[in-house]
């Protein structure tokens, strides 16, 4: 488990490439993360599941310092990062690729421009031809070759997501964080993305953290599944462990079942006849 070494700003690297220790985060009165402890192992894929609005995005944003904990610490490779300034964080973030839930493509740049953005910033690309080649390879990985000159506003939601994924992996980072990589994609495309995530892990030993609602995808890519619920981690284990876990909240979530209370609310609404209101509307 997580042990403090002599200095408060360092922990042993063996604890995991990314370690969250007692991370609490509130927005005003709203406690989104409540003393989260999580150690992520290098070279493995960790999947974070949980109901909508439970704080999955907030959790992964803490990993690269886009959000800072209200209390608690975040470590990367044994070094504390949550108290670094933006300059120092910038140097850490180069090791990460981050796929935003919304894609967050730069809408003033073309698809090719988006993918070249991180590359150009850190490397000198020798020639135009070379640049085109890199973009082509990255886009082929996500099945978007041929869209180089389009602007993000000219793409569908799923296409944007895939371009954003290509951009996140552009620098071949050590750690990739995927915030809902398969949402908005058809089942076949989703499976292509799953295969891509598996391939990156297999061939480049990339550490992945994926947030998803898609249980098919979660079972396929996960070495470990973590379930977040009301600010706490309520289940943590391999895909098989989670599938057979004896916990009603988790079971309901992974099987997509609505709870009895929620059903009750829907029944109440049913008995209320909205069409009654219409009688007064002149038609």
């Amino acid at each position, binding site marked *: 488990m997580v042990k403090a070494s002599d200095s408060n700003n360092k922990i042993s690297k063996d604890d995991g490439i990314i370690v969250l220790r007692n991370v609490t985060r509130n927005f005003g009165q709203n406690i989104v993360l409540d003393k989260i402890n999580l150690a992520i192992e290098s070279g493995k894929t960790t999947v974070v599941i949980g109901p909508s609005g439970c704080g999955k995005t907030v959790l992964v*944003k803490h990993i*690269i310092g*886009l959000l800072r904990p209200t209390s608690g610490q975040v470590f990367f490779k044994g070094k504390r990062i949550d108290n670094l300034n*933006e*300059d120092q*964080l*910038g*140097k*850490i*973030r*180069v090791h*990460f690729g*981050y796929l*935003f839930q*919304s894609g*967050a*493509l*730069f*809408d003033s740049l073309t698809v090719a421009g988006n993918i070249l*953005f*991180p590359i150009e*910033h*850190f490397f000198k690309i020798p020639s135009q031809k070379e640049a085109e080649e890199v973009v082509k390879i990255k886009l082929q990985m996500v099945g978007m070759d041929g869209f180089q000159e389009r602007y993000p506003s000219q793409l569908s939601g799923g296409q944007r997501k895939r371009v954003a994924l290509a951009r996140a992996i552009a*620098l071949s980072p050590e750690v990739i964080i995927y915030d809902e990589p398969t949402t908005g994609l058809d089942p076949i495309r989703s499976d292509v993305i799953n295969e891509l995530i598996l391939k990156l892990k297999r061939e480049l030993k990339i550490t992945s953290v994926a947030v998803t609602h898609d249980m098919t995808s979660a079972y396929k890519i996960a070495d470990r599944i973590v379930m977040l619920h009301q600010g706490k981690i309520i289940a943590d284990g391999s895909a098989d462990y989670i599938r057979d876990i004896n916990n009603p909240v988790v079971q309901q979530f992974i099987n997509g079942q609505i709870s009895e209370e929620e059903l009750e609310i829907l029944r109440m609404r049913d008995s209320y006849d909205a069409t009654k209101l219409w009688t007064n509307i002149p038609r």
Partner: protein
Amino acid sequence: MRMPAAAGRIADHLERLGEFGRFVWRAIVVSFFSCFKPATYPLIWSQMYIIGVRSVPVIMITGAFVGMTLAVQAYDQLAGMGLEERLGALINISGVKELGPVLAAVMLAGRVGGALTAELGTMKVTEQIEAVKSMGVDPMYYLVAPRLLACLLLAPVLIIYADLLCSLGGYFVSVHVLGISGRPYWDYSASVVELWDVSVGVIKGFFFGAAMAVISCYKGFNCEDGAHGVGKACTEAFVASLISILALDFMLVVIFKSIYNTLWPLRSMF
């Protein structure tokens, strides 16, 4: 009960002021170092095109109208004293020292500042600024520095345009409408307007441009979520830019005046 609430609000304001101060400081430092990085030049260049070149027509029209209006307004006063020949001096000295720089800066704040805030605010709301950060790129370096440098460098140039057109507009009305002969218009202008006056106007431009750019970028970066947030940020940015332009103008006038008075005895040496 009421005291703590008020104290809390004051603390809030102070905190925001501190945040703004830090933002300004970082913007200045990063912009300074960007000047030595050839990789930023294309970014600055494209901002200069958007901010500078596209503003030329607006600025020229502003300048011309200022000159023309001044001519019409001042004519009666001067004619009453039989001094209408000196119209050129009055138009040019007010245009070059005050109205040209201030009105050009105000036009820029409207045209460029609004667009800057809206652009950066939309980027903030759609997580694009976070995306820049997530790639290890400093948004100060990629987004703020090029805009700040472009405004800082181009505002003085645009002020020169405004001055020029103010002069020409004044000339047009004085000579072709009010019937003053052209020769005294230029003669009196040349004898009254010194290089110092023009320089003061242009130097003000650096300050106005920088203030407007920093305020607009700050408002964009700290914009609240949603379309409403972006709109609000734009309004606030414009109002804040306007007030700071006027306040800076006042302070600079006071400072320059004391410099002028100190240097005045030395003038004969040049």
